[in-house]
């Protein structure tokens, strides 16, 4: 369902505002939706994403909890067992780790363990990733841990519109969603109308953000704007890059990704988290298994280095930037030349 919105209805909004609006609308539509976490009430969250919710819906619906991530998620499990739809905020990526036991041992497998009798319609919002000059423990990209756990959906918006639509879809899902919010895009703006979001996509559909013919950049979350910029810059060098925004890492949209790579014949996966053991390895393997005969070059990855997230003064060297993406795209050509050369 695509609704066209008159340009006048659209105003500049930030991703954080779109997320707030999504929470507000979800709470208004469904009294079982409860927001909980550290500082989400009076303060409105350290990123202000829950701003105004406690005032509008009361402290029982938007609850400042004690400082205990396992406790927050563990009690949310019990609340979900009793028919509520908790939306849990983990304050920062690295502070979600105390909750992993609950996440992995219970949230992810409650449906499976009980043959569908107990479901976990939980959304776990995690601001993640770097690029905001955060000190240690404030910039991790932890998506690989979540992806390694069967039973979790892992979703991450990259646009203002998706921030709204995907969060609504996540809250509406009857299964748990780890909703990764790219914190460096919180203040990114777009002309957006909360009243008529163009489309609330079902979870698990990738979006093609830019059509192109000579290679596909596959990315998500904070790296999307970087890839878009790289695609523009690559034109000068004769590359017409397609950009695929995964939006949801689990479920994974093999169809869109493979159709794109089959068209372009080349693929580069771009993400912030470390390359070794990162999502890029899985994505590259999937593409290789499915598109081998369409590939003109190996699937390459541009990822963060395999290091603990660096201090803020060094993070720009770690994060995949436009130049590193362009260098890698250039290698696609080199790799194909090399492959062809050897074949002759």
């Amino acid at each position, binding site marked *: 369902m695509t609704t066209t919105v008159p340009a006048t209805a659209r105003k500049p909004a930030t991703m954080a505002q779109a997320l707030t609006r999504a929470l507000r609308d979800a709470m208004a539509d469904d009294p079982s939706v409860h927001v909980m976490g550290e500082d989400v009430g009076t303060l409105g969250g350290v990123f202000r994403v829950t701003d105004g919710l406690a005032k509008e819906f009361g402290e029982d619906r938007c609850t400042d909890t004690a400082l205990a991530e396992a*406790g927050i998620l563990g*009690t949310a499990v*019990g609340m979900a*067992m*009793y028919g509520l739809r908790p939306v849990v905020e983990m304050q920062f990526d690295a502070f979600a780790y105390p909750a992993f036991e609950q996440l992995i041992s219970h949230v992810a497998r409650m*449906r499976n363990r*009980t043959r569908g*009798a107990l479901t976990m319609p939980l959304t776990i919002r995690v601001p993640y990733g770097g690029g905001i000059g955060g000190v240690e423990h404030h910039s991790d990209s932890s998506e690989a841990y979540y992806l390694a756990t069967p039973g979790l959906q892992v979703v991450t918006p990259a646009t203002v519109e998706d921030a709204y639509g995907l969060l609504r879809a996540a809250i509406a899902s009857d*299964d748990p969603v780890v909703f990764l919010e790219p914190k460096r895009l919180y203040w990114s703006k777009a002309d957006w109308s909360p009243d008529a979001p163009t489309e609330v996509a079902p979870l698990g559909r990738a979006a093609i953000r830019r059509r192109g013919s000579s290679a596909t950049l596959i990315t998500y979350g904070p790296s999307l704007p970087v890839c878009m910029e790289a695609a523009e810059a690559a034109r000068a060098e004769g590359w017409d890059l397609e950009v695929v925004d995964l939006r949801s890492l689990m479920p994974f949209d093999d*169809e869109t990704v493979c159709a794109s790579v089959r068209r372009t014949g080349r693929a580069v996966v771009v993400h912030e988290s470390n390359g070794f053991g990162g999502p890029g390895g899985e994505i590259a393997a999937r593409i290789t298994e499915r598109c081998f005969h369409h590939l003109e070059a190996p699937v390459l990855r541009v990822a963060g280095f395999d290091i603990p997230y660096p201090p803020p003064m060094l993070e720009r060297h770690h994060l995949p930037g436009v130049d590193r993406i362009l260098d890698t795209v250039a290698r696609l050509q080199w790799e194909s030349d090399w492959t062809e050369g050897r074949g002759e």
Partner: protein
Amino acid sequence: MTVLEQPGSSRNKSSLAGPPPTWQPRVDPAPLLPDAEPYRLLGTDAAARLDSGLLTRLYTQLVRGRRYNAQATALTRQGRLAVYPSSTGQEACEVAAALALEDRDWLFPSYRDTLAAVARGLDPVQALTLLRGDWHNGYDPHEHRIAPLCTPLATQLPHAVGLAHAARLKGDEVVALAMVGDGGTSEGDFHEALNFAAIWQAPVVFLVQNNGFAISVPLAKQTAAPSLAHKAVGYGMPGRLVDGNDAPAMHEVLTEAVERARRGGGPTLIEAVTYRIEAHTNADDATRYRSDAEVETWKAHDPIALLERELAARDLLTDDFVGATRDGAEQLAADLRERMNADPEVDPMDLFTHVFAEQTSQLRAQAAQLRAELDAEAAGHTEDAAGTDGSAEEARP
């Protein structure tokens, strides 16, 4: 040395010269403190006020529970169960936990608490599914309001708090009773659950069965607290210490705590002092960490024997009653034995059925792969069968 006397403190600055504002504890700790001795009824004058009907009900369940434990342990020897953590010696805690709750309440058991679930009405075979290995959880938790038996220690405690809190938000007078062992009280989830429960004044009762050991590790290596019940005070909830082998005392203390929670009085932490007579599980060797003499002293404090003394004093321990109770327990065991001796039916395709509400394309593909493997396996069997039947014989040169 007070803060103001510390070297380098600005004690001479006039703005800091006054004493700190008078400090008051937020809650008077005195009423929260547990008794010095475990609370007991059996063998005391107070036992006289106990209702005979309750005593016979408890007795029947204790005897059934013990027989169930023995039967389940025997089933491990026959290979019918992968493992069984027996609650022999702890039956009074298990039974009281089940009987203190109303139908609308929820029970959050740990892996050792099969008996509490069965005493609450769960089908004994369904209660053993996890341990038999045909599925992780064999029952619909909504049917008797029993959460899945929980294996990771103490993780069920925050669930109980969340459920109780949610029920209260919805205006339902539902209480959650969560069970944990002494070892489990050292886990972070224990702390977080108690803290949340007290802050929210959630209608939860925490029952710690202190059976002396976490596998082989004795309580002294688990905590330096005067008792586990003392831990409650720090959270701002009452702690109760009770003789876990005294079934009516257990029942009374739990019932009081459940009623208090239902009235909006908030959570209670109960420590039941008991003993695990068998090893941790059938796979454990308890002689490595405790003496026979110790076990014998606890056998002398057996929950069934304690209750029998009270029943006998009331002339309720008649041959008829004892016989009928024993027959009922034998019937339970025979039924369990018979049904557990049938191979459970497992459907491999179930592996994919309950991962997500909507199957992903990846899981659909993997399900198709398994289907094909199963079909090939079945075809192979048919071929094997064909190879041994008469027609194949004739075809030989």
